[in-house]
């Protein structure tokens, strides 16, 4: 069911996410321990190409990774297959992309 292309995409997206997850955790700990409030965080992220790119990439890779992973689970446990399976995976991926994209847009551009 899962082709080699999907296998590779999931591994590459995982590799890309490793530094992103560590960076995200570091930033979270820094923000909480430093006592930054919402306004202070937004003042740093608004219009920032760096934070926009970092979290934009995070959302894209997480959407790809999670959609492929859930596709395998849906195939093995829910017995979805064929077109239904692929539609399910694409919808999951697009859903996560939309949710994450909206969050990045709000924090960086809005």
């Amino acid at each position, binding site marked *: *069911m*899962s082709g*080699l292309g999907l*296998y*590779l995409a999931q*591994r590459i997206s995982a590799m890309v996410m490793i530094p992103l997850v560590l960076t995200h955790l570091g930033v979270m700990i820094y923000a909480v321990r430093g006592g930054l409030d919402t306004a202070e965080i937004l003042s740093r992220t608004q219009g920032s190409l760096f934070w926009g790119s970092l979290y934009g990439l995070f959302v894209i890779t997480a959407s790809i990774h999670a959609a492929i992973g859930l596709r395998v689970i849906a*195939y093995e446990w829910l017995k979805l297959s064929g077109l239904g399976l692929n539609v399910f995976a694409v919808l999951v991926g697009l859903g996560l992309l939309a949710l994450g994209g909206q969050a990045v847009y709000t924090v960086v551009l809005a």
Partner: protein
Amino acid sequence: MSQLPVIKRDDVVNMRIWRGDASGGSFVDYKIPMSETQTVLDAVTWVQRNVEPGLSYRFACRVGMCGSCAMMVNGRPRWTCRTHVSKVIKNHQIKLEPLRNLPVIKDLVCDLSDFFAKWLKANGRFVPTETRERPVKKISPLSKQRQAANTAIECINCAICYAACDAVEQNPNYLGPAALNRAWTLMNDVRDGGKPERLRAVTGDGGCQCCHSQHGCASHCPNELNPARSIAGLKQAAVTAIFKGEV
């Protein structure tokens, strides 16, 4: 090391044996006398010879060479000829079932057709590159490839790993640990000429990418092989081949 339960010669054990066929079945209890060195296969044979002549099961060598006596013993796949009753008995009871992930024919006998068909689907056949007129190729036993082939070559196709694999259970198309282990052996055989086709076969539908690396195969293999490592080798070879444009 944990203490094994002391079995006295007069002890009786309850053998819960699955009886039935492809349409269904249930467990039947048989009380059998025990002895210190009795194997599970001995116990099944005792039941067939003394209580239930119609009981179906497979065995051949009785010494861990052929693998045909593999069954589920208390929920785990084992060679019954190499499993002492004293090692697996729990509350004076042993539960026996046909191997998991394979269709049942009758009682403890399952149909291995799919298992062997997948072996061929994974291009498990050696593809010769020499003729008998040519001299035998010299291969150093110390070469990296030969050593990789040697570590995986002792598989006797008993289907224990196949029965232990959760990925096979969830995905009937998955080729399984034994077939992929065989493919990896041939991928490391410098005399073999079928590598590109084999790599395509093991990366297609149900290929090596379906393995979840749970290592059920490695933890149950009676020959102490590690099919999961072989499958990891195939995955690595496949990814390398993608970047080289070979797959």
